[in-house]
């Protein structure tokens, strides 16, 4: 076992954070005011580098720190939403200017972000983006369209993948920018989903402007940077990413946190339902008396086998990562496993609910929650990369099986056949 940092132990970190909280935690502070203290001390993101609001601690100590915060009800930094993906991407690839300008405001929750990757013509094939970035003077001018952009209607900043060179192969001509969403050239239209929510959007660019310093990498490296963002997104699908939950504690900071969570989480209220709400299954089984039905017991048991083993697989991956070991195959399976769990959960909820599952909204069980599960679960196997794409990744990258012959990476992108998408 290789210990990277010798001077820290679980006990020493616990003692340090406890002492710091004792001296500093004050629920009468404003939310941003408190989080600025977290940034200065590094306790908001202890695994980040010391020079960028962290303490340079191994990530395994985060649980200890979280426990100490939870013990006294101290509020943490803003962790929900696309902003975490922005932070990870900027930490890995951003310039000092980006880190200076954005990281703090990500932690304080002052800025909301969105991810401008998918397009009408390029979803699974995200590297097939055709949104144009053209250089005029020293600025970049953006034209085109993105789609499925979660939170775009709330975001100040967008992570943008766009094509800057059409004469090279698909993956080589992409650039990665940070785009100011609040400008005349950016238009956001909500897109209604089959579950009645509208958490994603279409985003149209008409001569939107990106200042030169907002480019994250050189033309050609855009795909590499996007891969970092996607890796963090898919890892989040294993269910270990923090889900912002409001407390009912009293005090100014809690009021502000509740307000923040209500706003940031608004597009995501249905996300627990899309994952299948395994947490409700035993309660519903008792309530409906179906717990005694031998057929349904089998289905519940199958679901619990799947959800427990997938949770433990994620924990195994996390534990190995904490020990600094190279990632094993267990780290790539969470996203696909979560689709299986969600589908089986929808099946079980249908069985448990019987004829009441025909109804929705206020007429249906739990004020519509069960109905929302049934019409939200199909998103799990699509969002963040489809099940089919996950299988391709597992077979080609983890199992090293031969890739399908490629028809589009060996020629200039302008010559690749594609659907004509009108907007």
């Amino acid at each position, binding site marked *: 076992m290789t210990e990277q940092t010798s001077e820290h132990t679980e006990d020493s970190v616990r003692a340090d954070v406890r002492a710091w909280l004792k001296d500093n935690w004050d629920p009468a502070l404003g939310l941003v005011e408190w989080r600025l203290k977290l940034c200065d001390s590094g306790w908001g993101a202890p695994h980040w580098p010391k020079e960028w609001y962290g303490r340079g601690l191994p990530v395994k100590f985060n649980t200890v720190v979280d426990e100490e915060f939870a013990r006294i009800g101290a509020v943490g930094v803003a962790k929900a939403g696309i902003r975490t993906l922005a932070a990870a991407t900027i930490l890995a690839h951003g310039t000092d200017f980006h880190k200076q300008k954005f990281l703090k405001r990500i932690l304080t929750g002052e800025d909301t972000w969105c991810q401008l990757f998918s397009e009408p013509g390029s979803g699974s094939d995200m590297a097939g983006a055709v949104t144009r970035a053209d250089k005029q003077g020293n600025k970049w001018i953006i034209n085109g369209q993105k789609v499925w952009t979660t939170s775009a209607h709330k975001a100040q900043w967008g992570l943008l993948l766009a094509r800057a060179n059409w004469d090279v192969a698909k993956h080589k001509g992409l650039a990665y920018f940070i785009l100011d969403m609040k400008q005349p050239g950016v238009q956001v239209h909500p897109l209604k989903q089959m579950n009645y929510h509208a958490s994603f959007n279409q985003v149209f660019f008409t001569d939107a402007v990106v200042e030169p310093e907002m480019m994250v990498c050189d033309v050609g490296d855009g795909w590499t940077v996007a891969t970092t963002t996607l890796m963090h997104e898919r890892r989040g699908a294993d269910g270990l990413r923090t889900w912002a939950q409001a407390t009912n504690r009293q005090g100014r900071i809690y009021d502000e946190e509740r307000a923040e969570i209500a706003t940031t989480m608004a597009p995501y209220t249905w996300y627990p339902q899309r994952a299948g709400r395994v947490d409700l299954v035993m309660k519903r089984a008792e309530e409906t008396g179906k717990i005694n039905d031998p057929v349904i017991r089998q289905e519940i048991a199958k679901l619990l086998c799947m959800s427990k083993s997938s949770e433990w697989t994620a924990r195994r991956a996390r534990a190995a990562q904490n020990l600094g070991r190279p990632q094993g195959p267990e780290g790539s399976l969470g996203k696909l496993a979560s689709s299986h769990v969600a589908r089986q959960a929808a099946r079980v909820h249908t069985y448990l609910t019987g004829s009441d599952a025909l109804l929705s909204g206020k007429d*249906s069980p739990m004020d519509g929650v069960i109905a929302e599960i049934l019409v939200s679960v*199909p998103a799990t196997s699509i969002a963040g990369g489809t099940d089919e794409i996950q299988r391709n990744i597992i077979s080609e990258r983890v199992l090293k099986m031969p890739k399908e012959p490629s028809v589009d990476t060996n020629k200039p992108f302008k010559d690749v056949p594609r659907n004509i998408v009108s907007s």
Partner: protein
Amino acid sequence: MRFSFSNEQEEFRSSVRRALEARSPTTEVRKQMATEAGFDREGWKKLNQELGLTAIHIPEAYDGAGFGFGELGIVLEEMGRNLLCAPFFSTAVLATTAILNAGTDEQKKALLPKIAAGEITATLAFSEDSGLNDAASVAMTATPSGAGWKLDGAKSFVLDGQTADLIVVLARKPGSKGEDGLSFFTVDAKAAGLGRTPLKTMDETRKMARLTFKGVDAKLLGAEGGAAAPFAKTMQQIIVCLANEMVGGAERLREDALEYVKMRMQFGRSIASFQTTKNKAADMLVDVEMAKSAAYYAAAALDENDDDLPAVASLAKATAAEAYLQTAIHAVQMHGGIGFTWDNDTHLWFKRAKSSEILFGDANHHRELMMKNWKH
């Protein structure tokens, strides 16, 4: 047993399909499903009278066309395919089969010609708040009152219950239990003491209501206390009819998904050229064709009054339930993100698949019934 449709039947199918395609594109479905009634009364009356849809399986003696479940199944399959918003299932399947199975000749003469002519819509109310589909769960009571009866209690999940002109109700003698003491009644939708509350349905193309009865005047339909057998027969016919409607919807989903993947390109090629897409498309074809065979077989069994019937009816419903749902899941998946949006039509059928899976008992329920009734 009949294993193919006659030329006349195929022609009939084509004419129904053409009419429904013209009258009920998804723009129309979306418009109707957003209304409380869920259909356009005048439009439906016209379409029904032109094609004689509600008359199909009503015997000629009651001014019907005298066809069987084979033909009724064709109409239902086409309606499932088209997602027609109309009170056809409630009127022509639920109420009509109950009247045919339970009513006296005189009652049939009084009620069926109006249904055949499309003058009235009707439904059957049997489930109550428990949502169960068996006779034993009926709690609503019927007490004699003068020359007629009074009904007290509540019915729920009543298809088109908020708009039906005539409601056939299953109720019991106070104090009776299980299959005893059950009778069918007919109730005029305008009767005093009848409350009708529309329910919010997950599948907006299939409207339901909860009905409350407080001393509502009712007429006995058929023999007093003798509804158990005709109800059981009605249930068998209903689920076979639903299975036929379901396979129509499943086939439409399958075809639309196939058309989409053939057109969509990713990675410089058609997504239909990926083996995983082909495997899904092939599996969907197998599922849907199997379910069609079961639904057609069960309809033919009804026409021939086959001995294996109760089991075969449940087999058809359980098979259709799994096939439709799995086809719907694949269809959304094959569309990718667009399949999860409101503006894409896939979710309309996805929700219909889900509601059909549950309606009148899910696949587990029917597999169990099938095993109970299996003869060899």
